[in-house]
């Protein structure tokens, strides 16, 4: 037993002390730029870019990967509380939480750097991607106006269709449906050919909300959509009933795959990649996913077909991953210089080609894969709830999305859902008034 204990103690001491120094202990060194990120698929690309940057400028950049995202967020919270955030980091949360970091003095306002040289840096980005990280004058979060993060890539969510299955169903794969009648007709033709319609992660409710918002913009326009959030227009209005009817129509015309209401997006991606469904409602990240699951998949990208001619179709999108600079960094100038380099044309094209994410730099477009181009083409149609200066009550969003699920499974009618959502809205508005 003594020998056993001795062995353990010796092993413990030698192994704890006997390791070569690693790359982690000099985080506080002021010469090195340290970046924390969660993007596991980009680790190799970041490492290569850091090496390239060192060769160019002599500045060391250390990318440290912490994943999964929820654990990364915990680390960021802990580091913020102890004021040990690295030079570059990202916050995976909504604007409300980001604003609390900004107000606590953790995040640098990048506007002065964006404005330099006649706004040259700012002009390289898609304005809509930058807007996700922008706080306007008089914002509800009471944050000083400015841009607080740099978009590393952009994304949007559209409809993707399988060209081979379209052909099999007698549809023209080069001319996907553009209006509602064509879309419903496509659903019926696919059904007749024994092909499942659309798959999507509608079990993760936010994706239903995404498509519902798309059609709300198309049917009533942005102003009325915003007015509804403000409580100045009603969910019981005919336009909202039409938004809910979109889902009833899709169900009635066989456009939705079986089990879509409880489907998680990973499963939906598998189904589409394995050609078990002809349509998918998914984000631009799917290029990466489908490429991994089925490199031979022959697909096209289309905007959701318009329901109404009154207003243009808008899709959700904006910044994908964004990086922030610590306001307490000892290397602010060096860090900004590096971020400018990282978001420049060549580096963005390199990242797009290596990781299949849409570049945030508009100038890189000519050098990206064709599959990504199909998504980038529609960046002008992009919008995002966080770009609006108002936000809907979470309980109303939940009622809206669950109501749509009920319509899809045939439990409720669009009219019933519209009334129910409006009732929740009134209740929430009253609560808000009482709080004030």
């Amino acid at each position, binding site marked *: *037993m003594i020998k056993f*204990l001795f062995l*353990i*103690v010796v*092993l*413990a001491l030698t*192994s*704890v*002390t006997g*390791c*070569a*120094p*690693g*790359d*982690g*202990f*000099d*985080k*506080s060194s002021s010469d090195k730029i340290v970046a924390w990120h*969660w*993007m*596991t*698929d*980009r*680790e190799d690309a970041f490492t290569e870019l850091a090496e390239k940057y060192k060769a160019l400028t002599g500045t060391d950049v*250390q990318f*440290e*990967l*912490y*994943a*999964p*995202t929820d*654990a*990364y967020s*915990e*680390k960021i*919270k*802990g*580091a913020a*509380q*102890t004021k*040990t955030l690295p030079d570059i980091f990202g916050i995976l949360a909504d604007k409300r939480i980001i604003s609390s970091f900004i107000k606590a003095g953790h995040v640098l306002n990048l506007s002065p750097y964006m404005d330099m040289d006649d706004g040259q840096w700012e002009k390289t980005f898609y304005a809509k991607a930058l807007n996700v990280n922008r706080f306007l004058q008089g914002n509800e979060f009471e944050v000083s106006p400015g841009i607080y993060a740099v978009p590393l890539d952009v994304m949007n969510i559209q409809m993707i269709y399988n060209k081979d299955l379209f052909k099999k169903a007698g549809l023209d794969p080069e001319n996907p449906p553009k209006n509602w009648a064509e879309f419903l007709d496509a659903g019926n033709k696919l059904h007749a050919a024994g092909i499942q319609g659309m798959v999507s992660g509608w079990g993760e409710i936010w994706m239903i909300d995404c498509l519902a918002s798309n059609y709300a913009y198309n049917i009533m326009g942005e102003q009325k959509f915003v007015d509804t959030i403000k409580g100045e227009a009603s969910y019981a209005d005919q336009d909202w009933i039409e938004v809910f009817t979109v889902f009833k129509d899709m169900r009635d015309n066989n456009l939705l795959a079986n089990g879509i209401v409880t489907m998680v997006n990973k499963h939906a991606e*598998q189904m589409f*990649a*394995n050609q078990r469904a002809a349509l998918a409602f998914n984000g631009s*990240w*799917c290029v*990466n*996913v489908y490429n*991994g*699951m*089925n*490199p031979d998949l022959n697909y096209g990208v289309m905007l959701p077909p318009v329901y109404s001619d009154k207003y243009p179709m808008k899709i959700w999108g904006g910044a994908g*991953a964004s990086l922030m600079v610590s306001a307490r960094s000892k290397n602010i100038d060096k860090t900004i210089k590096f971020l400018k380099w990282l978001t420049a044309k060549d580096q963005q094209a390199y990242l797009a080609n290596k990781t299949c994410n849409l570049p945030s730099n508009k100038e890189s477009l000519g050098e990206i894969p064709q599959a990504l181009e199909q998504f980038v083409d529609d960046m002008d149609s992009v919008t995002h709830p966080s770009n609006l200066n108002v936000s809907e009550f979470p309980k109303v969003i939940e009622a809206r999305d669950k109501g749509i699920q009920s319509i899809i499974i045939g439990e409720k009618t669009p009219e019933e859902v519209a009334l129910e959502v409006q009732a929740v809205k009134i209740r929430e508005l009253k609560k808000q008034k009482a709080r004030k």
Partner: protein
Amino acid sequence: MQKPIYYKIKKFMLMYSTHILLIIISLSCILPLLWMFSSSLKTQATVFSDMSLFPQNPHWENFYIAWTKGGFGRYFFNSLLYTIVVVSGIVFITSLAAYGISRLKIPGKNVIFYVFLAAMMIPIPGAFVALYVLLNKLGFLNPNTGFPLLDNVIMRLGYILPLINSGLSLGIYMLKTFFDKMPGDLEDSARIDGCSVFGIYWHIALPMAKPAIAVIIIFNTLNVWNEYLLAMLVLTGKSLMPLTRALMVFRGTHITEYPLLMSGMTITVIPIIIIYLMLQKHIIAGITAGAVKG
């Protein structure tokens, strides 16, 4: 005349139904492992379409790719180090504490014991931010002594100490239950022979508790070997990370490289299976002897 036949049929049916039930339970335990191994031999495309348990064209090179791409060598060493140190620490501290609480007259020992039991209710992830702040204040997160080797040791201790702490409650609980059943006559005999308190613990109590210690070793080895979240929170830089970090390489933000992930997991699980097989006899003895008795 009918009775023996009735009992024979009853015995036969009971035996068969018991065996069928056990086979189903065994399959439910083994199938995920087989599926993991099977997926590790497929490609990213066939992993979703080929449902066979052993693919027609097995890709054995996945293991090599996973090992090199994931940088398993360094992480393997780190995990081995953390497991040995943490499990040794837990066994040493819990056996001393449990013996003290069970056999010695210490004022308030029951209160101490219940405090340890209460600690079992708090999972580490629930205390992440508080733990991060505490470790930072104690200087474990960003040591800057000017001696890189010392900094390295301090950072590793910042991971090892919370892990030891997290294993104490269950260990003390199990060993105390074991020591409580130890006959007092044994201690009296040892005392008559001139044995000190530590001598009784060392020569009598500890050897008797081997089955319970085996259970503690396997439980904690599993915990430490599979641990990742705390490492990610506390450790900075790849060089100090455990084996589970290597698996994250294959889990992308939007896509997971399943065959490589499964190959990596198969590599990761092998040491655990070996340890389990080595300690199997003691674990069963420990459990059946009441080591985990409530």
